[in-house]
C-alpha cells in the first residue's frame, strides 16, 4: 500500500472510531436524561426552576449512573477476557 493509501486508511479508521464514539455518547446522554428525570423530577411541575433538592438529586443521579456504567463495563470486559482465555486453551488442546 502506498504511503497515501496508508494515511487514508488510518484517517478513515479514526473517523469511524470518532463516529461510533459520538453515537455512543448520544445514546448514553439520552438514557441518563430519561432515567434521572424519572428518579429526580416530580411530574407535578409546581415551578419553573429546579429546586435545591432536585438539583442535588440530579448531580447524584448522574454520578451513580456513571458508576453503574463503569461497574458493568468492567464485568463485561472480564467476561470477554475469560471467553478469549477459554478459546485459547481449547485451541491449544486441539493442536496437541
Amino acid at each position, binding site marked *: 500500500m502506498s504511503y497515501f493509501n496508508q*494515511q*487514508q486508511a488510518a484517517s478513515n479508521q*479514526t473517523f469511524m472510531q470518532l463516529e461510533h464514539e*459520538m453515537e455512543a*455518547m448520544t445514546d448514553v446522554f439520552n438514557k441518563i436524561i430519561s432515567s434521572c428525570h424519572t428518579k429526580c423530577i416530580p411530574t407535578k*411541575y409546581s*415551578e*419553573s*426552576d429546579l429546586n435545591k433538592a432536585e438539583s442535588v438529586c440530579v448531580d447524584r443521579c*448522574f454520578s451513580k449512573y456513571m458508576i453503574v456504567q463503569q461497574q458493568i463495563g468492567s464485568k463485561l470486559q472480564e467476561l470477554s477476557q475469560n471467553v478469549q482465555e477459554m478459546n485459547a486453551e481449547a485451541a491449544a488442546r486441539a493442536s496437541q
Partner: protein
Amino acid sequence: MDINALTPYDRNRFMAMMEEKQVKDSLRLYHNLVERCFLDCANDFTTKTLTAKEEACVNKCCDKFLKYSARIGQRFAEQNTAMVDIQQQLISENASQ
C-alpha cells in the same frame, strides 16, 4: 485514537457529521420534550384545546426540563473532556482557516 491521523478531507467530514448531529439532536430534544410535557400535563379530554391549567403546566414542564437537561449536559461535558477537547480542537482549526 490519534486525532492528527485525520486528513483534511476527513476533518471536513467530521465537522459536517457534527453539524448534522447537532441539527438532529436539537430536533430530537424538541420532539421528546413535546411528548414528555404532553404526557405529564394533558389529562382533561373534555375539550380539544388546552385548559388554562394544562397550558401553565406545559410552560413549567418545558422550562424545568430545559434547565434539567442543561445541568445534565454540564455534568456530562465535565466527564467526557477527551471528546470535548477533540471537538474543540477541530472547531478552532476550522475557524482559523
